[in-house]
């Protein structure tokens, strides 16, 4: 361990220590060339050369003692036990002080490759111990592992919100479509005019038409009345017929009496009355026939009379039913018209309310449409954050590769990084946030060219 420690701290003689010697040699040659070979020149050359040798010897000694002094604390600091793991502190690291920047000639070149990592670890640990308050030893590796996870999770957030909002706006489209359709249909049903005049006209028209129906029914009733009057007249005729039938009967009786008397007279006349008796007999038969006819006429008239009376009675009953029915129909129609008017009034009211609601709903939809545009902006902002994370991951990977190749690691140009980041912004909120307080006035929403 001791020998390797010593080896680790050995440095090759830097070239600048030899510069007095070189200058001396150069001076000597110049002098000899310029002044030509002469004893005096030779003397001066020798003196110059010796002076330069002495100077470079002294500076070498001085450098060696300085180096020993400088590396003494490091030699002591080399660990005998492994260092404890430090909790990663989320402290913004200050740029490393000058003395910690690795020297231009990297030490890895005279170290076996398999030892490089180990040597680096040891040196880093030593540095950390010496400057413990300035460094988080494994911040690079730590960040290289954490940042990809963060980047992926931001990607998850982006994808999920995009999906959710797209689905939401689809549903919203459907709702708006249905709502607009329903409102349009309702307005169409009310004839497009949502005022009372429209409905009043409609109800007046209905009343007129129904009145027509009532009038037709009443006309039919009047016809029926006329019919009944005609039937009544028939009854009168029936009475006359009855009288005539009775007259026929009377005539038949009288004729029979006559015939009877005639036959008596004929019997009294004896033989001279025989012809007369025959006539009387015929007249008697005639009278009997008339009497029979008179009876049957009477009977028939009675029957017809009864039929007519019954018909008139039935008809009269139906007439009164019809009148009742018409009266009821009239009442019903009036009631219906009244209800219709009330309904029309409230429908007009509802239609007005619907129009008003429709206007309010339109405004709500409008403001919702503005809100739903947020996802587009948040998606953009998240993209920029993710891209910048990936950029940092790339840089850390690059540094890790540089370490393995023994290349020196430049410090990160944070100002330039921030400027590049600012260049990727596409929303004014990002720019405003970046500049912390430079809230530029939001440009007018629409600019026409």
């Amino acid at each position, binding site marked *: 361990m001791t020998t390797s420690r010593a080896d680790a701290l050995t440095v090759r003689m830097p070239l600048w220590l030899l510069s007095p010697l070189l200058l001396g040699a150069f001076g000597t040659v110049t002098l000899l060339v310029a002044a030509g070979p002469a004893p005096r020149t030779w003397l001066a050359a020798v003196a110059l050369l010796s002076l330069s040798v002495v100077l470079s010897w002294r500076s070498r000694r001085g450098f060696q003692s300085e180096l020993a002094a400088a590396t003494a604390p490091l030699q002591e600091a080399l660990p005998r036990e492994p260092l404890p793991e430090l909790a990663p502190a989320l402290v913004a690291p200050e740029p490393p002080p000058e003395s910690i920047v690795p020297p231009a000639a990297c030490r890895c070149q005279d170290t076996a490759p398999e030892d490089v990592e180990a040597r680096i670890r040891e040196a880093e640990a030593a540095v950390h111990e010496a400057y413990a308050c300035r460094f988080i030893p494994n911040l690079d590796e730590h960040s290289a592992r954490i940042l990809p996870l963060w980047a992926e999770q931001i990607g998850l957030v982006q994808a999920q919100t*995009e999906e959710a*909002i*797209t689905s*939401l*706006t*689809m549903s*919203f*489209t459907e709702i*708006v479509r249905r709502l*607009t359709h329903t409102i349009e249909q309702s307005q169409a049903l009310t004839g497009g005019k949502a005022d009372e005049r429209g409905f009043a006209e409609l109800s007046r028209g209905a009343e007129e038409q129904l009145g027509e129906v009532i009038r037709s029914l009443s006309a039919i009733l009047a016809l029926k009345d006329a019919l009944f009057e005609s039937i009544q007249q028939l009854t009168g005729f029936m009475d006359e017929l009855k009288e005539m039938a009775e007259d026929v009967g009377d005539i038949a009786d009288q004729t029979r009496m006559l015939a009877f008397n005639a036959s008596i007279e004929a019997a009294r006349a004896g033989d001279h009355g025989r012809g007369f008796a025959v006539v009387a007999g015929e007249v008697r038969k005639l009278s009997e026939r008339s009497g029979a006819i008179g009876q049957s006429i009477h009977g028939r008239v009675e029957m017809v009379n009864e039929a007519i009376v019954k018909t008139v009675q039935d008809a009269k009953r139906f007439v009164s039913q019809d009148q009742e029915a018409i009266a009821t129909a009239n009442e019903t129609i009036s009631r219906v018209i009244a209800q219709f008017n009330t309904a029309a009034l409230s429908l007009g009211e509802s239609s007005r309310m619907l129009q008003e609601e429709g206007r309010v709903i339109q405004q709500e*939809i*409008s403001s919702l*449409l*503005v*809100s*739903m*545009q*947020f*996802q*587009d*902006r948040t*998606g*953009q902002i998240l993209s920029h954050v993710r891209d910048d994370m990936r950029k940092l991951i790339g840089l850390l990977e690059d540094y890790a590769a540089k370490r393995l190749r023994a290349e020196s690691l430049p410090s990160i140009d944070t100002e330039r990084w921030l400027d590049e980041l600012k260049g990727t912004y*596409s*929303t*004014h909120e990002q720019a405003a946030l970046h500049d912390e307080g430079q809230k530029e006035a*939001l*440009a*007018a*929403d*629409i*600019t*026409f*060219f």
Partner: protein
Amino acid sequence: MSKTILIVDDSASLRQVVSITLSNAGYEVVQACDGQDALTKLDGRKIHLIISDVNMPRMDGITFLKQVKQNPGYRFTPVIMLTTESAEEKKKEGQAAGAKAWVVKPFQPEQMLVAVQKLILP
């Protein structure tokens, strides 16, 4: 016959919002997800107005606008840029490329409809 409007934006939800706004007002809407997709959709169809985003993958809005202006069938179709960018330089770029208007997101539906009615081809 209703007029047709092409909306070009990489955000599906924003395309949807523009679509609702325009179709409620009676326009027919065609959607495209970026400049290249929009160029394929422009194939022969009669378009009365184009609304385009600026920041899109594959082909951005300004490039798309320039391509449209070179296409004989659509050279006179008015184009409205709809974007989160509000910087003057960007607006000038859009104006130079031939846009007719620059709308900053988020847009108000009524204002968008006013602009559309003002600029759309008869």
